[in-house]
């Protein structure tokens, strides 16, 4: 079914599109919009076809010689699902951009980077080889950086982009070290070979790899303690936040943990560490979302929190639950970001304190935002409800007390979600903002995603069957029909507890004037949360130490040609001497 042509198309179409849109030039913006939509839609169609042809065998192998091994592309259930998410939400983000980016300068650069990103993200999840995975991993980081800093005359956008690049590249170092150690021990770049031989590696080496990959995943998925880059990334245009920083790239960390889970599950303390990283992200980011005033930053914190649920699920052994929540989250969070983009596009500000009462002026945006927000809060029967309950059930089954934190996080989610809806769409307008409902291309993307948020949970049967068919041998995933899932969720006591907490969360926002005394008592916590729990301060200290060291070592950089040449020659002599000593001996 799946053949090499489909693989080449699903990566090649967005990349070819990137080149074409760039070559068309910024003098013909109409053509740039249309071509970008055309290529991304074609990729989305091919990605859907790939979903039906999933297999656990490599369908395309490109030999790169003895040193770099083979490039392999394996469209198993996990890869096919993430390919479909990247391509379809990518296409919707591009369609949304037709209205959102209308009249902007340098559309060629924008669309080229978006399409380049979509291709790279698909390449990342299809990779069967570690080296190739690292390669695509870094391309996605680079595209993310360039798109965050798209408005490169805005210093905040440039700073946000650099911060994202530094943190995710730091994670990439963890991935690279892990990958090189794996190649050193197994002699193969293939992930499948490593998963089969992992138990033969020395325990401490395996632990080094496992924690290196956890570092990479936490940095990429903005998990505790690396979460600070994601709020800064909100300087990007809203479709970029929806695509890269909600639906696709930030999921790469979760993908990595899933992919290597069978090898690392036996490493002592690894699953506990994963669980705790996830849980800390759920709770800390939830509190920060509650204290944020910027609409997109609040959504970014909620993304960190929901990614925390996925990481938590993997730590608890709920592999399928994590990916099912990933699918739900990709859909409803892309919807929320795009709806927020429509609000920001119309109102011209991101500060929720200036909004209020926008619901009457933009009824469609309010409707879809509420659908996305209810899915985020985990209200039945939207997709976020089912997937979050599956995650919590996995937490219960794993029999650790941490599940209590995850259940509390659900109540927190409901509270900050209610606050967002209330501040933006309801109440009296707090300032005179120009507002109009979304233009047609935006409406299309919003309505499709809203329909997705209402229905993707119905896909649990075919999706789990796909996972079971292609991943059961190594990952031990069993098929789960829709009825079984409904029974399972309804029979778990946690479900009812969570629903109670969600209701309490909504009620707490509704009755906030009664709870004013409590809010005042909690003001110190809110102050700490709105200052990112001191992580920004920590970052500034790291920057300060780095700059101080650079000032001190600056003395070696004379800038005088003669010294530089002597330095080069001296370096060469040292290297030669070392070679002679090592080889001569």
């Amino acid at each position, binding site marked *: 079914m799946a053949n090499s042509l489909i693989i080449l198309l699903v990566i090649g179409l967005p990349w070819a599109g990137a080149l074409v849109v760039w070559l068309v030039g910024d003098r013909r913006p109409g053509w740039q919009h249309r071509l970008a939509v055309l290529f991304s839609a074609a990729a989305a169609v091919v990605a859907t076809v790939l979903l039906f042809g999933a297999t656990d065998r490599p369908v395309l192998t490109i030999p790169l010689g003895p040193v770099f091994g083979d490039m392999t592309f394996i469209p198993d259930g996990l890869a096919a699902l993430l390919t479909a998410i990247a391509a379809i939400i990518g296409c919707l983000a591009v369609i949304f951009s037709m209205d959102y980016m209308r009249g902007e300068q340098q559309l060629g650069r924008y669309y080229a980077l978006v399409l380049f990103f979509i291709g790279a993200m698909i390449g990342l999840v299809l990779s069967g080889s570690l080296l190739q995975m690292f390669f695509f991993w870094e391309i996605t980081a680079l595209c993310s950086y360039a798109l965050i800093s798209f408005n490169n005359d805005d210093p905040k956008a440039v700073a946000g982009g650099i911060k994202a690049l530094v943190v995710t590249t730091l994670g990439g170092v963890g991935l690279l070290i892990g990958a090189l150690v794996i190649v050193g021990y197994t002699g193969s770049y293939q992930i499948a070979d490593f998963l089969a031989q992992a138990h033969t590696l020395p325990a401490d080496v395996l632990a080094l790899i496992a924690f290196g990959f956890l570092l990479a995943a936490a940095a990429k998925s903005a998990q505790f303690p690396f979460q600070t880059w994601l709020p800064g990334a909100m300087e990007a245009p809203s479709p970029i936040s929806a695509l890269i920083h909600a639906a696709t790239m930030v999921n790469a960390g979760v993908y990595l943990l899933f992919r290597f889970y069978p090898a690392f599950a036996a490493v002592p303390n690894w699953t506990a560490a994963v669980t705790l990283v996830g849980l800390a992200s759920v709770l800390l980011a939830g509190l920060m979302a509650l204290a944020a005033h910027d609409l997109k930053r609040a959504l970014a914190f909620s993304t960190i929190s929901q990614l925390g649920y996925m990481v938590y699920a993997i730590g608890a052994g709920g592999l399928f639950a994590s990916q099912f929540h990933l699918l739900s989250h990709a859909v409803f969070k892309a919807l929320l970001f795009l709806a927020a983009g429509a609000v920001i596009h119309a109102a011209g500000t991101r500060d929720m304190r200036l909004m209020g009462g926008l619901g009457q002026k933009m009824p469609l945006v309010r409707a879809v935002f509420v659908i996305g927000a209810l899915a985020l809060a985990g209200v039945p029967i939207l997709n976020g409800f089912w997937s979050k309950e599956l995650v919590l059930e996995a937490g219960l089954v794993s029999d650790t007390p941490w599940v209590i934190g995850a259940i509390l996080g659900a109540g927190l989610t409901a509270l900050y979600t209610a606050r967002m809806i209330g501040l933006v769409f309801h109440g009296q307008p707090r300032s005179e903002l120009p507002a109009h409902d979304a233009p047609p291309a935006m409406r299309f993307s919003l309505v499709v995603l809203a329909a997705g948020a209402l229905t993707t949970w119905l896909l649990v049967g075919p999706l789990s069957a796909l996972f079971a068919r292609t991943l059961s041998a190594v990952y031990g995933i069993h098929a789960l029909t829709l009825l079984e899932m409904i029974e399972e969720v309804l029979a778990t006591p946690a479900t009812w507890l969570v629903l109670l907490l969600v209701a309490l969360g909504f009620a707490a926002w509704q009755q906030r004037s009664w709870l004013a005394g409590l809010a005042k008592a909690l003001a110190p916590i809110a102050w700490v949360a709105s200052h990112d729990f001191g992580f920004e301060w920590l970052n500034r200290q790291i920057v300060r130490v780095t700059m101080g060291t650079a000032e001190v070592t600056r003395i070696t*950089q*004379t*800038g*005088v*040609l*003669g*010294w530089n*040449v*002597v330095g080069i*020659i001296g370096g060469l002599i040292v290297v030669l001497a070392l070679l002679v000593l090592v080889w001569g001996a």
Partner: protein
Amino acid sequence: MTDTALQIIVIGVLGLVGVGLYGLLAVRNLIKVIVALQIAVKGVLLGLVAAGMASGQPNLGESLAVTVIVADTIVAVVGLALAVQVRRHVGTLDIKALSSLQR
């Protein structure tokens, strides 16, 4: 080749490279920097030929020396061409004045 001859050649090599490195550090004129670099490289050439002789592979040493001569000529040509351009644009050949890293 006798040991004495080899010793004399090694002294020559060290001397030439030493003069070249000293020149690189001491002079401030861009043309003179290139001249100093040339002197150091000539010392290396002598060393290559001598090493070939001493190890019984004169062909290897000589072919390496020829390669170095070619590369070195290119370096000299590009360096001098740059010096001309620097003189034209900046109006000086003083490398201390050219440095933009200093405060």
